[in-house]
């Protein structure tokens, strides 16, 4: 992932939309309540350099060593993790099929 490259118009628009979404949320939520709200002047898209004026410490990202999850270092004692070096998120070996409602063995949902 590169650092220091300018935001694309699409990335910039997406970031600005997120700011607008939050302004709307907080404006609605703060009716009748006191919610302090500040906006950092510039927005960082993760993985890209901060725009000028950002106060975020991500400005120093370029000086940091990049983590390497494909290192050939000795990790022989680490728990087995077959995907640790995979360069993509791994698709299932078989596509899921439609199940039989009522016979579920477990529920996948948000965690309590």
């Amino acid at each position, binding site marked *: 992932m590169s650092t220091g490259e300018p935001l694309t118009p699409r990335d910039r628009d997406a970031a600005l939309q997120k700011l607008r979404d939050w302004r709307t949320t907080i404006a609605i939520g*703060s009716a009748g309540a006191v919610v302090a709200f500040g906006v950092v002047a510039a927005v960082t898209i993760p993985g890209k350099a901060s725009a000028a004026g950002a106060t975020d410490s991500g400005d120093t990202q370029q000086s940091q060593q990049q983590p390497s999850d494909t290192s050939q270092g000795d990790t022989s004692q680490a728990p087995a993790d077959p995907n*640790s070096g995979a360069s993509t998120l791994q698709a*299932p070996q078989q596509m*899921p099929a439609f199940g039989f409602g009522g016979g579920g063995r477990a529920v996948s949902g948000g965690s309590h």
Partner: protein
Amino acid sequence: MTIATADDRAIGTSLRVVVTDAALLDVAKAAVDRVVREIDESCSRFREDSELSRLHASAGREVPVSPLLLTALRAALRGARLSGGAVDPTVGTAVKTVGYVEDFASVAREGAAIPLVVRPVPGWQRIVLNEVTCSVVVPEGVEVDLGSTAKALASDLAARAALEAMGGAGVAGAGVLVSLGGDIAVAGEPPPDGWQIQVADSSDAPISADGETIAIQSGGVATSSTTVRRWKRGDVVLHHIIDPATGLPAQGPWRTVTVVAGDCLDANIAATAAIVRGASAPEWLRHIGLPARLVTHDGAVTRVAGWPEPRPA
């Protein structure tokens, strides 16, 4: 084949272990408990005595870490990279700032208004992981939260450990499912009709004939949802999935995303990233080929990349 199930709670969430040979349930559960305990001791941000807390106490210095914490950090950084930064382990300060400061059972569901400031998180690139010396540097001011990936990693590792304890894949018919808060990993031989998994907003939903259910043979299933771990401060509803670009709870169209992948970890990374990515998530999931089910805040469902359509009633 006699299916047997054990239910419990661990690391602040529900734990379910299902085996295809009832005689092996106890040995499988013991193996799962051991892995989950080790993950908690290594990766919890809520325990002062965890290895992660000790790492934070040594911020700015190179600190040797255990193979398990190294694995968890490697998984988190890989998730950050492959999600384009949407799933970032440096959200620790941000998630505390919006009120998730302790085990969720202790977080007040309502409270006074708090300051909410849009501020990008420090960024996963600032964590320096040295595979050769098995050590890590977390810069001062950076707080790591492995909650998003460590639970899914625990499910994967626990399923493998249970299968091994049960005698390995060579044992005819031996299969195991581990669900940790709805993050599900399976290993070994599945039941004849596959592992039947119901999908819902909440992992505490009762299993019912009306629930949408899929069948998987291997790998993992994970769900990220903004509907469960949520709370109010003033009149603002907050939740635990932080958008690294704003340092605030993600504000997208999806309330719940479920993904099937080659393992639970990758399913979790994709599901969490989809919540953060928002409207572009279906296109992204199609592109990377992960079957997914996305639910909007008003309940509309989108299925992509091979997620099975429900049969007509």
